[in-house]
């Protein structure tokens, strides 16, 4: 019984943790690695636009393919 109560309490604590404030984990000045060209889907933005267009047509859906900007947090 005691163990059950303890585990329930633990579960509650873990669930409550989800209510804590969400912040960006990586600060703008720490985006050195994220801003590296190797992190982009394609180095050629024009070819990427075509590929995205083809995918949009094929899937019948668009968007959610990433965020805009080079990762410097300035947009």
């Amino acid at each position, binding site marked *: 019984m005691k163990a059950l109560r303890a585990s329930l309490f633990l579960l509650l604590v873990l669930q409550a943790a989800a209510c804590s404030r969400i912040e960006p984990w990586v*600060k703008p*000045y720490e*985006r050195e690695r994220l801003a590296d060209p190797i992190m982009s889907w394609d180095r050629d933005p024009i070819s990427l636009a075509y590929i995205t267009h083809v995918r949009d047509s094929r899937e019948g859906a668009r968007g959610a393919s990433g965020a805009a900007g080079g990762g410097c*947090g300035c947009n």
Partner: protein
Amino acid sequence: MFLKARMTGWRAAAVGALIASAAFAGSTRTPAPDFTLASRSGGKVELTQLRGQVVMINFWASWCGPCRQEMPLLDKMYRKYKPAGFTLVGVNVETDPKDADGYLKATPVSFPILLDTENKVSQLYNVSAMPSTVLVDRKGVVRYVHHGYKAGDENEYLDRIRALIRE
């Protein structure tokens, strides 16, 4: 010692909150937290040493496009207003300043570049965008914070610098 550390933390939080509340760009009036950083050209630079001059602190990195774009413009500003009591420090936020060296070799600037390899000063000033530009007046008060850079923003910098120099 403990009190001093707490005080610095409290002040940093106050400045951080103010910078954050300034949203995108804006005027503030908080004492600029002091820092000492190693300079790229050797030696150390302390913010309080620059008291009496209008100081622009520019947080930049070589991987940040807009930062690279504004560097030559900042250099021009520095050269033009240096005799009038203006100074600029470029705080490089990279953990390894090697890339910055490469960039500066191709695009040399005359203002001092400070190395914040541990990001302590970036934390102290709560840098929430790259680049971030902070203007400190002659008395050591943060008067203006600007986040990011897009073409034309340098005119806003110039207006603010001229106003602070005239004070």
